[in-house]
């Protein structure tokens, strides 16, 4: 007794709510358009191909980190370790290529393997021992940070060209576009495709919605979670390669705030922290929202501290919307 069962038939209003749920990126897209319109009116320098290309370059590292973060958050997890894993991976691949004379491509592969290994470690601890993702990744974040500092405290420079070409630009109709941004967009396309058109993508949503129901539906939930964290780790490895390419050095100080920046982008993109709901396209929009705000405020001459302040307000607003829609159910 006591569980009230509402007997309902589908009314148009419910149907509408259903379709809004299905397109969770409407809100983020509206926010992006509004923000862009505002900055376009406020400063003439905003609306130019050059400036858009710049925004994309500015966001490509956090953009790739946010891919992994999105998958983890869809499964109701969270990954605090991504920035530190990226820093470790970046320092290792830079130093092996520059100082130890390893083939630059193999050095990049090494960076990817280390990052994916951290992801697998996260996933195994979450599924094997059943620890909360927050705690696990808080731990591995510190481990990765410490390992980076033990390995080196100075930046690694004089990198071979293979490590920096992703930071180079090429010209399309007079606009300079960074090669790395193409890689970022390609990865978004790939992830979008995976989430939409593969059985694996489907199971990620199922596990995020209700892990016990997913298990009872025959899904190997541990394998799904380990896979998600490992793929997330891989994306941090790619982010490390982009980070090194963009700055031209292996920097042990990199990624200090990347975990929070990536979470910000994911949340702004409409992915629910309660799991099961969210989209990779939304995250790309979220990444762009942050990028547009930072860039626009910069053009308006607003101090960077205030940019951070505004980002903070944006995050709380986005999570509030998520919380309120969640509570109504």
């Amino acid at each position, binding site marked *: 007794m006591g569980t009230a069962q509402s007997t309902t*038939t589908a009314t148009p209003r*419910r149907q509408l709510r259903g379709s809004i749920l*299905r397109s969770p990126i409407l809100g983020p897209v509206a926010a992006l358009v509004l923000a862009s319109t505002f900055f376009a009116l406020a400063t003439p320098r905003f609306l130019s191909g050059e400036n858009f290309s710049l925004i994309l370059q500015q966001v490509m590292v956090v953009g790739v980190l946010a891919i992994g973060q999105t998958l983890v958050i869809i499964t109701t997890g969270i990954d605090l370790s991504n920035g530190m894993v990226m820093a470790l991976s970046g320092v290792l691949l830079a130093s092996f290529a520059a100082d130890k004379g390893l083939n630059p491509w193999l050095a990049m592969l090494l960076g990817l393997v280390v990052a994916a290994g951290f992801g697998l470690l996260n996933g195994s601890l979450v599924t094997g021992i059943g620890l909360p993702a927050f705690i696990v990744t808080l731990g591995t974040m510190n481990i990765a940070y410490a390992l980076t500092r033990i390995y080196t405290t100075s930046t690694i420079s004089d990198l071979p060209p293979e490590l920096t070409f992703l930071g180079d630009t090429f010209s399309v109709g007079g606009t300079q576009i960074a090669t790395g941004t193409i890689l970022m967009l390609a990865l978004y396309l790939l992830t979008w495709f995976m989430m939409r058109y*593969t*059985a694996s993508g489907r199971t990620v949503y199922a596990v995020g*919605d209700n892990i016990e129901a997913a*298990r*009872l539906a*025959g*899904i190997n939930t541990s394998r799904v979670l380990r896979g998600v964290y490992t793929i997330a780790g891989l994306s941090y490895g790619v982010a490390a390669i982009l980070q090194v390419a963009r700055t031209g050095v292996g920097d042990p100080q990199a990624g200090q705030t990347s975990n929070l920046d990536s979470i910000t982008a994911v949340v702004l993109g409409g992915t629910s922290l309660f799991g099961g709901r969210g989209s990779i396209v939304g995250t790309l929009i979220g990444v762009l929202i942050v990028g547009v705000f930072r860039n626009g405020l910069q053009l308006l001459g607003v101090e960077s501290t205030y940019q951070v302040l505004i980002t903070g307000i944006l995050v709380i607003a986005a999570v509030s919307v998520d919380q309120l829609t969640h509570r109504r159910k």
Partner: protein
Amino acid sequence: MSTPAAGRVLLEMSGIGKSFPGVRALEGVTLSVREGQVHALLGENGAGKSTLIKILSGAYGRDDGEIRIDGERVDIRTPADAERLGISTIYQEFNLTPHMTIAENIFLGHLPTRSGMVDWAQVRQRSRELLETLDVHLPVDTLTGTLPVAQQQMVEIAKALNRNTRILVMDEPSAVLGERDIENLFAVVRRLQASGIGIIYISHRMKEIFELADEVTVLKDGRYVGTRKVAAVTMDELVQMMIGRELEDIYPSRRTEPGEVVLKVSHLAQDRLARDVSFELRAGEIVGFAGITGSGRTEVARVIFGADRPTAGEMELFGKPYRPRSPRDAIDRGVALVTEDRKRQGLLLKLQVFVNTTISGLDRLSRFGLLRLKDELALVNTWIANLRIKTPSPEFVVANMSGGNQQKVVLARWLSLGIKVFIMDEPTRGIDVGSKAEIYQIMADLAGQGVAIIMISSELPEVLGMSDRVLVMREGRIVKELARDEANEEVVMHHAVGHEVPAA
């Protein structure tokens, strides 16, 4: 037992009504309790006992009726109101904080202070006294989390006494206890009774009611059936009061010719929740599992489905050894489970109809890991039509559907896989009558196609209406097997609550 001199009337609830969206949970229910009386509250699952208790304890508001204490009309809107009026409730799940000591739990929320500081000396002293009165001898600094269930229950009672309780509600207090602890509990209840506390005692076990209670009130389908003096009523009469309703004719008629043995379960055990369970299931038959909540039926179902591992026993499926290590194993061998809790275990509530329908069979809809979305949509549309699922589109989110349609989505998931053994745990819980009839028809059709069905249900009419055989479980064991023509509500209920039926 002999009724002590009946005290003054403490509590009177009359004309109590309560609705939830789409459900009339209580209607015109009356209950009155005297000082020093043990008043049993009896009824099948879903009869409204819990709702009534929750209204009394302030967890729910009532829609109709009035509550009087000492003849005065009172308004109970919150648990704090109930506490102020001297009403305490001990639920089956205790309200103790495991990381706090016995004394801290007893005084939780009521810590006495002296000049702004907690008066710990008084807390310990008073806790010790309370435990003494219950004949419990434990250091009051013990963490409650480390205590066995029976002693935790005593701490709950001490907590209630500390709040000057005059009316104590106990919701199936014996359900969690072993034989010896039950004796202890009874002794405590009698002591409380002697001190003038009025006790409302909910139990499924007839034996306890006759041993402990002075009066018994029976509820059925949210309505008041009657109140009897225990000394002047027979068990048969009470069972009749609990179940005496008309069988509505919503069960499809069908002819069964059970085929080969599909599933053979031998001496299966799961911790202490299921013990020495053996039975056979044949193709095309529907076997009903009856029993009260907690009798081990769900545990058996989960083991067969691979959701839990058995602690002992063997199973065979189509003559071959069957040891599912996960639900996936079971599904791949043609076994499905419709879970008892649809919303928490059955459905992916925030996801769409099509996702929920195909989630267990994605491998069949993929090629090289890629989903064939067109085939998927066609499959989902077929099942929406077959089962007459009311949904505006396959992309509708299941959380927004009615219970009956949600359950049909669950059925569609399994039917689309061509399941051979179907375990249905409370398949019509929380579903309107129309959808119920449809689900019965689906079950009958499946059996007709040779699918073997296990139906676990706490609704006796449904068990009797649908089953070819009824297995009755009690305390983890199958205590009786009844053929269709032997089974009636009385016999099943008697076995379920643990009372031998007089030869009829």
